[in-house]
């Protein structure tokens, strides 16, 4: 079943210069694709490839210049449906600091459900569940400013979960985190997807994209490639062409294979690689 359908999407930023003339810049250029309910899709690309703009159009934060986006058959350009759409499609942004509204952790997580008009007892339950899901329940009464970047990002994820969405878009959620916070956030994202939430991960870390079922590569506002991670990583030229790098684990696997040691092509992440090596040494 399709949850989000992007149809001939074009998006232009219009900038008005000081002398009143307008200049437009086409960030997304006529793209179409569907996202299956329950899938884990990574959208990758260099800076300026249009991936972040794309993310913001998927829940109606930006309205297409032309073409349309249907979320569960609701058009994001329809003002009457926009709150329905956003309650179905949650979003987590890059900067953990600038998406937390309330000083106290649990009050912030409650912000979304409060906006939806959920009854108080139900909000309490959702907030507790969401905080447990991201492992932050014991910090629920703390001040948000006391937390680390990774912890703040987990609060932001809890804030999205508490709205009980069917899909969550993560717009470079780990870009500002340290490696430890990054790992924890990725683990939470994977768990959420396993629980059935459609996951869209915008990232420029290829090792994070490797964990998805499907990778869409953006280049100059267009879809450059749309395939499984296995297919994408088997084509070194394609990755170079998009200005991206191989995930370190895949790169390492290939370099070992080049030296004549046979390596299975299913190795995508560091964990896979470690598992394989350990298994071989036994």
């Amino acid at each position, binding site marked *: 079943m399709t949850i989000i359908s992007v149809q001939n999407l074009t998006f232009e930023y219009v900038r008005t210069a000081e002398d009143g003339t307008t200049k437009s810049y086409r960030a997304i250029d006529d793209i179409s694709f569907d996202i299956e309910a329950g899938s884990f899709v990574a959208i990758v690309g260099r800076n300026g490839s249009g991936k972040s703009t794309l993310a913001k159009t998927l829940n109606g934060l930006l309205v297409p210049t032309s073409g349309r986006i249907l979320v569960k058959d609701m058009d994001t350009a329809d003002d009457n449906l926009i709150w329905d759409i*956003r309650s179905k499609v949650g979003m987590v942004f890059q900067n953990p600091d600038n998406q937390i*509204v309330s000083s106290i952790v649990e009050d912030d997580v409650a912000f979304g459900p*409060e906006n939806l008009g959920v009854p108080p007892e139900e909000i309490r339950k959702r907030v507790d569940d969401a905080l447990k899901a991201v492992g932050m329940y014991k910090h629920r009464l703390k001040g948000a400013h006391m937390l680390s970047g990774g912890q703040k990002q987990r609060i*932001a994820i809890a804030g999205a979960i508490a709205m009980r969405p069917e899909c969550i878009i993560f717009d470079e959620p780990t870009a500002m985190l340290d490696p430890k916070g990054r790992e924890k956030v990725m683990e939470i994202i994977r768990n959420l997807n396993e629980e059935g939430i459609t996951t869209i991960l915008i990232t420029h870390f290829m090792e994070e994209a490797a964990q998805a079922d499907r990778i869409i590569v953006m280049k100059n506002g267009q879809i450059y490639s749309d395939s499984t991670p296995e297919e994408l990583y088997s084509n070194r030229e394609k990755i170079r062409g998009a200005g991206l790098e191989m995930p370190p684990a895949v790169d390492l696997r290939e370099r070992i294979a080049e030296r004549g040691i046979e390596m299975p092509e299913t190795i995508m992440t560091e964990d896979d690689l470690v598992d394989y090596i350990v298994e071989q040494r036994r």
Partner: protein
Amino acid sequence: MIRDITLGQYYPGKSVIHKLDARTKIIGTIAFIVELFIVNNFWGFLIAAGAMFAVIGVSRVPLKFIFRGLTAVFVIILFTFVINLFMVDGRVLWHWWILTITYEGLRRALFMAVRLVLLIIGSSILTLCTKPIELTDGLEKLLKPLQKVGVPSHEIALMMTIALRFIPTLMEETDKIIKAQQARGADFESGSIIQRAKNLIPILIPLFISSFRIAQELALAMEARCYNGGSGRTRMNEIHFKKKDMVAAVVLAVFLGVVIASRWI
């Protein structure tokens, strides 16, 4: 250093004062401030101070915390005292060069100083014993009747919540900018006062720009979380008047009566 700042200086506790409805505390504080201006003799202040210290005792907030608020405004209190001391005509107690202290001046100066001290301590009890979110929720509910005449009660409360939330963030941002400018050779420590004030411009401009950027990102995040104004919103912790609040209201009324009566002592 920046992590140490308290959120609106809230002192966590479980006392009756902490558990009172924020609205009761806000009204109580306003009443207390009003009566400080009704008082016209030192007996009234004695009663007010007695009541105030009784509340502090019940709240179990250490006195150290309470007086900390005073140090910040000490200069203002001193200034008011000195001005009043020398500026009032009346029976001369002491005279030197152009300085004259009169009996009335001394009385007025003491009066103002005591009033200011009580005012500051009294209102700090409110912020010390009430969580910022409860304070803003209480304010929102209190202002609600005014919505009919166009006072945006929900927006005011939300603005306060966000302001409190972003104080630490902006402090961090300021810290970063100062360090970045110092790394470029900026000097904030020497020169005359005017020179130093001018030196702050390279801090203020980037700070303004970044606060606009933060505001923009926050607005987007709030929209993504379905924020569309105050109507149709529910709250996780709804506030209700309880029995405690009734008792507090009665105590407050008695106290106000006594203070007003003190005018005729």
